[in-house]
């Protein structure tokens, strides 16, 4: 091996200039981190630099894509036939269920119209594919191949065939990043399906489980209970499966029960996911209507001469909009 001789690195005497430069760079990095942590403008920078970043994601996703293509190409006929058969059966079953559900759904629709509620069973979704990119280990995030050009917005809910996967946290022009429900920084309001108990499921630091750390001791929670989204908080629509309770134990302090749940969605296997378009209905009072009172055209003209006689006018206020839920900002429990 050729020795690269240089005079700049003496064996034992380190330079002062190097240390100074180190301090400057470290300080710069710290400033960047603090600014980013406080202001969150990394997203803006990344949005601006997405021309650079997105092709890299696509290229970095190629190996895993190629791996999948290879497994399909080299899978033996037997297995593919079996898989095909199984999918056929699933489809048949699902169709049969759907046919039976159709009449029920219609009836439900009619009843709901009678009750004048806004809920509907139909889903407004968009299909997205995962891009196989590793955003750092112990970071429960996935990259999807849809972005701002496909009208994706932060906060949209990501689901797969089995349940809730997470929500969009960052949008770039043609890709977006979603946070999984198992992220330690994520929380999702849930209901225990059997007993109706409302609580919150957090991601866990160990990875593929959810923790429900504060259930009252008297509450009725058992192993095997299904968790569904409760719709509170206005981010996740109600009724989607979240997970299944696997373990219930008392917290060390004894004041609460703490449960572990396994996510219903295939967090590490799903390739195709769905993005929900309509967010949950925001609870709480509707936002104040922006213009209450008589319309501006009825306002007295300050330049007009005062009428000599007091004229009697009937105030014609604009009617309050019945529901302005969309105007209210969701009080999300995203983080």
């Amino acid at each position, binding site marked *: 091996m050729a020795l690269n001789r240089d005079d700049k690195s003496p064996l034992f005497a380190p330079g002062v200039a190097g240390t100074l430069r180190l301090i400057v760079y470290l300080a710069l990095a710290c400033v960047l981190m603090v600014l980013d942590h406080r202001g969150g403008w990394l997203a803006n920078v990344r949005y601006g630099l997405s021309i650079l970043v997105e092709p890299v994601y696509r290229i970095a996703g190629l190996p895993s894509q190629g791996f999948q293509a290879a497994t399909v190409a080299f899978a033996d006929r037997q297995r593919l036939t079996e898989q095909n058969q199984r999918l056929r059966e699933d489809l048949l079953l699902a169709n049969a269920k759907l046919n039976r559900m159709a009449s029920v759904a219609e009836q439900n629709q009619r009843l709901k119209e009678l009750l004048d509620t806004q809920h509907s069973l139909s889903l407004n979704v968009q299909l997205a594919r995962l891009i196989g990119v590793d955003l750092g280990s112990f970071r429960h995030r996935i990259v999807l191949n849809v972005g701002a050009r496909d009208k994706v917005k932060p906060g949209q809910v990501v689901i797969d065939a089995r349940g809730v996967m997470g929500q969009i946290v960052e949008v770039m022009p043609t890709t977006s990043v979603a946070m999984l429900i198992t992220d330690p920084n994520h929380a999702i309001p849930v209901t225990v399906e059997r007993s109706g108990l409302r609580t919150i499921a957090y991601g866990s630091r160990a*990875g593929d489980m959810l923790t429900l750390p504060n259930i009252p001791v008297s509450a009725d929670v058992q192993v095997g209970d299904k968790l569904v989204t409760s719709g509170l908080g206005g981010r996740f629509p109600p009724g989607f499966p979240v997970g299944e309770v696997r373990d219930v134990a008392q917290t060390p302090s004894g004041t609460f029960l703490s449960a572990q749940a396994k996510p219903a969605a295939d967090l590490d296997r799903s390739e195709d996911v769905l993005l929900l378009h309509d967010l949950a209905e925001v609870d709480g009072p509707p936002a104040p209507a922006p213009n209450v009172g008589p319309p501006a055209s009825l306002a007295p003209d300050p330049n007009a001469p005062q009428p000599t006689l007091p004229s009697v006018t009937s105030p014609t206020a604009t009617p309050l909009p019945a529901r302005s839920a969309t105007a209210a900002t969701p009080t999300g429990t995203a983080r």
Partner: protein
Amino acid sequence: MNKVRVRQLWFAATLLISLFLMLIPLPGPLTPFKPYWPALVLLYWCLQSGDRVTLGLAFCLGVAADLFDGILLGEQALRLTAMVFIALRFRSRLRFFPMWQQSLAVLGFLLNDRILLLLIRVFGGDPLPPPEYWISPFVGAALWPFVFLILDDLRARLRIHEA
């Protein structure tokens, strides 16, 4: 001049490839075993041609990695700068180490890097990571001889080729 350019290109290409390797996912259960590629490649260049690797370069590579990673801008910049500083300071001695000692030194660098990352994350309000968090430096150290020999071999070949 052509020779210089080829070498520059090779230098830039290895750094870019290390960033790609960082982004490419490993199959599920192997994920915690993924070594920190940019650090390994940067360490190689530190030892092989220390005049080309400066703190500024480490900082820029770190910022680029942060942009791709999208976690916290400046996190990897800080880690890589600190690591390159230590590596450059002990460079003359490290180069004369036998391979197994070099591997141990790399293990030290990578563990130090993990501790830094842990500090940053805990300051940022994240919970403590699971025990698998500490596997990656050992994998990196185990891979070090191979990384070193492969990169060295490729470099030698390039030089012969262009001569």
